[in-house]
């Protein structure tokens, strides 16, 4: 460079220009930039929820805007909400889990079988909960091992688990609904703390733990890294396989928690529990701003995603609209949310 001053000067000038350009592009500003950021996306979800609330008040009035109704929405959101938090991790890490609904069913059947058959009446409710969590974790472990070490694509591995887990639940229960009448269990989960149902508290706690785990810990950082670029993560010294297994165990545990919540809400374990939870959870995660291809996750967005869908259901029910109309509108919302995201997250020049 030293022996050709003109070229050097030109190169210098270019470098300077390029840097200015890069700086300008990286500078925050404008609506698009805001919506691209996580906070901006969450703001959009709050607005959507507010819009739904306005529609609810306009059409349902008192029936919508009562404390009882809000509590109902939250209580109904809690079960699918816990599953969706788990799903957020798997999707952020570049995977997908289609078996969540089936795992909820299997966990619910397994632990109610333990409760009703083996130890009869004097079973402690903690055993029910532990069983549900272990079943969820175990099935998640199998998913994770198949995917990380068996090289099976997540879609296929969890699709197989979805079929097998529900089948197993039907076999164990002989397709009968199993009623739980363990006194301690009912007492523990149908209580209210500070006037709020225990189910809602569980959802809130899982969401807070999920947020901290994703945004403040090494586990969360590695999840983002693996979802964004698995090869680079491996070459940076991350144990990608082990981490992948942990992600599926995590979502399995969430399914176990959800099973317990569902049992307490319905007082039954059933092989038909959790139908289509996988689709509801994926929909909530995606409209929440988590990238389906991995590398970007938004727990708060997922929570809002769940609330939006449940509020929608509530508004439709209050107005005596059919389930079919709900499903139709849900589809529209998913598409609208994804199109908006695409519009504002386009990367220049790549």
């Amino acid at each position, binding site marked *: *460079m*030293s*022996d*050709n001053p003109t*070229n*050097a000067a*030109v*190169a*210098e000038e*270019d*470098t300077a*220009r*390029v*840097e200015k*350009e*890069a*700086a300008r*592009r*990286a500078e925050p500003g404008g609506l698009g930039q805001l919506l691209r950021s996580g906070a901006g996306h969450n703001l959009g979800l709050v607005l959507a929820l507010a819009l739904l609330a306005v529609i609810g008040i306009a059409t349902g009035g008192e029936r919508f805007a009562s404390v009882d109704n809000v509590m109902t929405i939250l209580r109904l959101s809690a079960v699918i909400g816990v599953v969706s938090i788990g799903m957020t991790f798997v999707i952020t890490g570049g995977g997908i889990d289609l078996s969540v609904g089936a795992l909820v069913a299997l966990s619910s059947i397994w632990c109610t079988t333990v409760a009703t058959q083996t130890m009869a009446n004097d079973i402690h409710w903690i055993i029910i909960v532990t069983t549900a969590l272990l079943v969820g974790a175990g099935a998640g472990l199998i998913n994770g091992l198949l995917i990380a070490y068996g090289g099976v694509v997540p879609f296929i591995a969890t699709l197989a688990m979805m079929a097998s887990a529900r089948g197993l639940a039907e076999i164990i229960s002989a397709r009968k609904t199993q009623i739980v009448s363990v006194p301690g269990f009912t007492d523990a989960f149908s209580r209210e703390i500070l006037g709020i149902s225990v189910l809602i508290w569980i959802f809130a706690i899982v969401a807070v733990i999920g947020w901290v785990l994703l945004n*403040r*810990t*090494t*586990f969360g*950082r*590695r999840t*983002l*890294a693996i979802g*964004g*670029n698995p*090869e*680079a*993560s*491996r*070459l*940076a*010294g*991350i*144990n990608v396989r082990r981490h992948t297994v942990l992600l599926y165990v995590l979502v399995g545990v969430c399914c176990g928690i959800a099973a317990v919540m569902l049992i307490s809400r319905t007082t039954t374990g059933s092989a038909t529990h959790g139908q289509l939870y996988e689709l509801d959870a994926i929909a909530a995660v995606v409209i929440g701003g988590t990238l389906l291809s991995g*590398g*970007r996750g938004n727990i708060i967005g997922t929570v809002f995603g769940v609330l939006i869908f449940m509020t929608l259901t509530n508004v439709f029910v209050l107005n005596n609209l059919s389930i079919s109309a709900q499903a139709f509108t849900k589809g529209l919302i998913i598409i609208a949310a994804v199109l908006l995201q695409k519009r504002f997250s386009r*990367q*220049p*020049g*790549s």
Partner: protein
Amino acid sequence: MTQTPEPSPDGPAARADGGDALLQMTGIVKRFPGVLALGGVDLDVRAGEVHCLLGQNGAGKSTLIKVLSASYQPDEGEIRWEGEPVRLTTPVAAMKRGISTIYQELDLVPGLTVTENVFLGHELATAGFSRRAEATQRVRAILARLGHSEVDPNRLVGDLSPAGQQIVSMARALSHDTRLLILDEPSAVLDQEEVDNLFRVVRGLTAEGVAIIYISHRLEEIRQIGDRITVLKDGRTVATGLSVAETPTSELITLMTGREIEYVFPERPATRPSQDAAPVLEASGLSGDRFHDVDLRVHAGEIVGLAGLVGSGRSEILETIYGARRSTTGTVTINGRRLRGGSVRAAVAAGVGLAPEERKSQGLLLDQAVYRNVTISSLGRFSKASFLDSGAERRAAEELTRSLDVRPAGVDRPVRNLSGGNQQKVVLARWLLRDCKVLLLDEPTRGVDVGARSEIYNLVRRLADEGVAVVVVSSEVEEVLGLSDRVLVISEGAVVHEGPATEIDESKVLDLVMEGEVA
């Protein structure tokens, strides 16, 4: 070769002088975030000529042809087609004008037949039913026109050799009414005989009035086939319309490099690390995928270069040392302690760092902030009970990126928006943060613009001076020789020469590489 290998003295000159320009590009500018890819390119191409595009890696050739085939839209500049200003908005629009491109990586569908590939996107069909017989017949005719009637239109493209696939790509171009054919390093995948075939095809096409833009690194090829030359450097046209016959090679090289000495390498330290001392990195009898029996010793403060052709096993050696590939035999030790094979984590824990060949796909989390890319291998240091202290992360990353002069500053930017050289510095920062003892650099300046290269070189030398053992792999022999203290020449997966970098020159290295190939 059946026709004259050298263009006849008056033939190409007559072609070059006569005829209006088919294509004229003036002042083409293309920017990417953080990079000025084209900073004003002029090019004019006439019907029936072979116009050669010359330039080093990163000079902007690929970007230019992507502008021409309308994969990219230029930010400034004018394109004229037969004298009329045109805007090529989509690849289909470019194709309709008669512009076809054959990329280096051939864009064919391996699971379809030759015929299906040729007519992909413009299938011959009546009411949705394909007219297979007619299509096959037309493909036969095109293949005959190309002089390759031996290619069976019903074979799967995946079963053909690279040369055969190239013929299919050309047949596809000719299935449209092609007036301008762009060949991006077409000879890279071919042997000598196939290159001769290719030239025959090219001459046949120019005789029919088709214009060719021919991109190649090999000057002797350009001498054989070209009519005129345009030279690009750092995204600008430095010379255009040079006659192939009248421009001496030395002038072309000066135009391409813009300087007598291409790069300025940092000075080697006066005292060489003693070869008797215990090495930091020692690989002995290492064999694996594509290489065998490699012995490598690197001392603290030493830079050892591996020179060799693409595919000679250089990258595989680095990746095996790093544990990203398994070795079949041999051992790797770091400071005398044997490294568990096939484990990246073991290598990283022992203080080895790798700056991989494909920086974007193997090295970086492009959408994540700079500081996260820097700390990803050292998260343990910034966490208590696995809770991260991102303030401390940012401070550490800031300090490092400042000392490496990463521009623009600011550790919260996504790495995607940095230029190639600055991205490479981020990768290096990651390993500096770990105080690594051994640094493996695979093509450290690929995609790095010329100005930033010397910065990377100085940085690597500084690290060695601080006691790091460095191994450099590069396709550019000049870079290996200029940067390293000691050089190993690799050919066909084996070390064919080892010695101080000052005692060997580029042509000797190339000789060794070629000899190894024959043996």
